[in-house]
């Protein structure tokens, strides 16, 4: 059965179409569907126990040709030619190398041009394509949904399951439309859209759903911007986020190493064109966001739903009607060492982290560089810039971005997850405060006792210049904010 012949008459959403096209077996009587997986991404943290499981059960890896691995979470971002100092980090990396060798999996190791954060590597190789299913033992797999793929994070047991069977037993997800209409003002980015979405629906608001981002503001975004948005779908509790493929998607993909070619390309595009949600298809829930009024955003608390516009003040927990939210806000302010009523722009930071699978692609670096160009970082603030992949690093250097970054007084590092979660030496010291372009502001996420404010690359840059949380609108020299991350191409 081809994808076309499965097309039903009933109007369907993008998510339903992709799901239906991957049904190996329809579940009956409460059993899950069996879904085929097109692409399995692997990294060193969540794979060792899965490979171990295969070995223990004497099972082969079914489709090495649909599997690809990279090293990212533990890799150092300095002196990458030296052996990894931390013993456990080294063990995980070495274990991945041995496992990939044994099971015939393609691996991009530290030092390789395609090495980098797994969610940056898949798209840059052209492996992430519209209409496919993508899984990885990592919750930010939702990133790949930017291409109109059904992409979601899985646990290690599921990693083993995909390795052994190339399928997953799953119950269909519910669907939620997130419609963002209007035009972003200069200085407002994809990151601000998604932070506003999460603040609006809450960290549990997307639970059980696939979010489909729609509307004129989403259509106007580049692929890098769409990836930023889909990346953080998990922070709203959703399994996946998706954007219907269009000319922007095709333009990004065309010519990439693993994109289809010739007749295959034409066939693929013809199919991809059928994926958009049908007129009249019903979503289980709908949310709308007005892009025209959005401002640069920042989180003040310890979950990504605790956010506000930069022009606001630290909220007063007593203003939350819900008792749980009130208690959570109280605890968050204590951990973050913030006082209710303080204007957010008066909050001084110790560090700025520009990186992670949310914001480490070339456009993010360009946006960051456009603001800091010719400036000096604030005294006493440590600024770390970590590209998402070795290829992004090389691209940035070809454009001279590394020079702008080092002239500014920032550190220009090698690719990896780095301070997004501090599994490598890039960590905050206890009590340190960081404006970070990553996706999680949980307690201790960037280092034990560290305090994280999630921001866009533009806000990170403005903050690095002024030393306090700042909007790009606060900078005199940046009256021309035409190069904004994830804005219209």
């Amino acid at each position: 059965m081809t994808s076309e012949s499965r097309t039903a008459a009933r109007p369907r959403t993008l998510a339903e179409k992709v799901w239906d096209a991957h049904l190996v077996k329809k579940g009956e009587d409460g059993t899950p569907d069996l879904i085929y997986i097109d692409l399995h991404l692997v990294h060193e943290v969540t794979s060792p126990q899965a490979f171990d499981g295969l070995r223990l059960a004497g099972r082969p890896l079914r489709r090495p040709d649909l599997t690809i691995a990279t090293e990212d979470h533990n890799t150092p971002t300095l002196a990458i030619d030296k052996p990894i100092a931390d013993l456990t980090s080294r063990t995980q990396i070495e274990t991945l190398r041995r496992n990939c060798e044994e099971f015939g999996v393609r691996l991009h190791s530290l030092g390789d041009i395609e090495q980098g954060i797994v969610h940056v590597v898949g798209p840059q190789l052209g492996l992430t394509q519209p209409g496919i299913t993508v899984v990885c033992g990592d919750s930010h797999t939702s990133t790949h949904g930017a291409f109109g793929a059904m992409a979601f994070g899985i646990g290690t047991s599921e990693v083993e399951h995909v390795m052994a069977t190339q399928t997953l037993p799953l119950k269909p997800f519910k669907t939620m439309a997130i419609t963002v209409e209007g035009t972003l003002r200069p200085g407002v980015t994809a990151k601000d859209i998604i932070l506003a979405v999460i603040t609006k629906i809450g960290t549990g608001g997307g639970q059980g759903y696939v979010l489909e981002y729609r509307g004129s503001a989403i259509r106007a975004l580049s692929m890098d911007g769409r990836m930023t948005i889909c990346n953080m779908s998990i922070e709203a509790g959703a399994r996946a986020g998706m954007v219907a493929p269009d000319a922007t998607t095709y333009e990004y993909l065309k010519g990439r190493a693993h994109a289809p070619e010739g007749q295959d390309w034409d066939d693929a595009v013809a199919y991809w064109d059928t994926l958009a949600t049908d007129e009249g298809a019903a979503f289980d829930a709908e949310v709308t966001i007005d892009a025209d009024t959005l401002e640069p955003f920042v989180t003040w608390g310890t979950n990504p739903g605790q956010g506000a516009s930069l022009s606001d003040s630290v909220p007063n927990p007593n203003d939350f009607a819900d008792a749980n939210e009130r208690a959570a806000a109280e605890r968050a302010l204590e951990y973050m060492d913030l006082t209710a009523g303080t204007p957010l722009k008066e909050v001084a930071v110790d560090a700025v982290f520009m990186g992670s699978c949310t914001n480490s692609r070339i456009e993010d670096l360009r946006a960051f560089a456009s603001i800091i160009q010719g400036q000096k970082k604030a005294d006493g603030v440590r600024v770390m810039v970590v590209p998402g992949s070795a290829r992004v690093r090389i691209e940035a250097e070809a454009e001279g971005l590394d020079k702008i970054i080092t002239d500014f007084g920032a550190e220009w590092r090698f690719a990896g997850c780095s301070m997004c979660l501090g599994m490598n030496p890039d960590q905050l010291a206890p009590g340190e405060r960081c404006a970070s372009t990553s996706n999680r502001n949980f307690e201790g996420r960037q280092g034990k006792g560290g305090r994280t404010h999630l921001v866009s690359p533009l806000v990170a840059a403005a903050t690095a210049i002024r030393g306090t949380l700042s909007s790009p609108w606060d900078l005199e020299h940046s009256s021309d904010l035409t190069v904004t991350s994830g804005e219209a191409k």
Partner: protein
Amino acid sequence: MEKFTTVTGVAAPLRRSNVDTDQIIPAVFLKRVTKTGFEDALFHGWRQDPEFVLNKPEFQGARILVAGADFGTGSSREHAVWALRDFGFDVVLSPRFGDIFRGNSGKQGLLAAAITEDEVEALWAAIEANPGTEMTVDLVARTATIGDLQVSFEVDDYTRWRLLEGLDDIGLTLRDEALISEFEATRESWRPQTLPVK
């Protein structure tokens, strides 16, 4: 996997909501490459505090955890489930679970059972009135009982069936191997392949 029918053991009250997997097991422990031995890592940050509930003598050997809403949100790390299992937990009761966490639990024989917020409050009160009393969780009847208090919990039928039968997921799927091969035979040539390396 062992068959799961009923569990009787000490229940511990975790009076917190939004317990994300970073709190259940901090990232630093994810570096291990084994599937067992994570008991020391469970709630590592909180366990530095001698007053933390799991440090109290009356809750030693606890097998049932009663937690606030949104337990196991955030990172997909399955280590969170292993750590709970290694520590000795067979059941977590909470009003809501992170999706991935709940999925992971069923696969490792950890029952993630949903009850209402009021029921959580009632169980907390009952446990704290008599710390160390045993609770019985009956998966067949879908009930949790402590003293005179009984609550019914929700768990989806499929997970429950698999837990009751002690069935391994992969083995179950491989019964449909012929269907998988049939599906693969129709896979379009333009769909991505990682090999050969271009």
